[in-house]
């Protein structure tokens, strides 16, 4: 099976040990899979609803593509297909003295300028981001200089020396 140098075999034994599976990770996975089932079930419509939905869809799609054809060009169909699987997710941070707040995360390639939060008053900053199902790491950047994990979020560890948070999209609850 393996033509490995025999001198390395003892080291490989340690590598091959299968890690213990954490029950909470399996629970999280199962919740995500059941969320997939729910999403799939929602796509299956009863016949009257399907006809009504089809009529509305055709009308909306036609209007949409007329506009898209004028403004966006050929890349738009793929974009639309991808967006069907996205979940609107609201992020909220309380930062009294902030002049600006942005969110950085897996969903925007950690771009500090891509996703600014809007000040909703009384120090509350908020933004809605459409996210794919699964675990999403993120953090806030206050006034362009101060990193903050989400004080109400799930800590995601400290792997690069700065705390981040993790959101579980499509799950009923965090582990």
């Amino acid at each position, binding site marked *: 099976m393996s033509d490995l140098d025999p001198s390395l075999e003892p*080291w490989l034994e340690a*590598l091959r040990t*299968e890690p213990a599976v954490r029950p909470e*990770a399996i629970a999280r*996975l199962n919740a*995500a899979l059941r969320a997939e089932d729910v999403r799939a079930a929602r796509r299956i419509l009863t016949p009257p609803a399907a006809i009504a939905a089809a009529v509305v869809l055709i009308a909306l799609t036609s209007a949409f593509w007329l506009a898209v054809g004028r403004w966006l060009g050929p890349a738009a169909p793929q974009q639309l297909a991808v967006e069907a699987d996205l979940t609107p997710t609201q992020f909220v941070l309380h930062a009294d003295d902030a002049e600006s707040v942005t969110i950085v995360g897996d969903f925007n*390639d950690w771009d500090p300028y891509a996703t600014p939060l809007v000040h909703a008053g009384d120090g509350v900053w908020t933004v809605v981001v459409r996210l794919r199902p699964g675990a999403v790491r993120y953090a806030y950047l206050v006034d362009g200089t101060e*990193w903050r994990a989400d004080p109400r979020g799930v800590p995601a560890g400290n792997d690069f020396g700065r705390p981040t948070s993790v959101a579980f999209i499509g799950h009923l609850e965090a582990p």
Partner: protein
Amino acid sequence: MGFTRLMKADAELIECVRRGDTSAFDTLVERHYAACLRLASWQLGHRDPAEDVVQESLIRAYRALRRGHTPREFRAWLLGIVVNRCRSHAARSRRRRLLFQRWWASQEPEAYQAASLEDAGSDNDVDPKLRAALAALSPRLREAFLLKHLECLRYEEMSRITGTSVSALKMRVKRATDQLRSMLMEDRE
């Protein structure tokens, strides 16, 4: 014979998933989760992101099966998804690391220096020397070595799931082996 029976059972379970029996996928998860986690943990170097990657991979696999995809060899196909997700995760992590480093170094240079030295922390009880040796390999060499000697895939299977030629993979495995031997055996020589 046991191996053959196992593959048949996977194929039967896949058929059940395609027909809508979601519990069949739970059995596939039970059977292959640990191997996926092992591969992702060694490829990424940490367990937490590995769990995220495995979850993402299994959800993608589930979607594909529900859509009617029929992989010839489920395990190799699933490991291929894990490999691809590891690559994406690593790319995201690189961007995040660069961003953190840039901002942090400008804000708190002393704290940044201190933490950089601790960056290679471990989260399991494997020999630190082995961990360091694997971490020192380039991602592509590590990936090829793990698929070959950890998951015991054939070069043809590795080629299919990585999109790399057999000869290139053989070269990567050889280079990885040479480097590991050099790093792990240096104290003994």
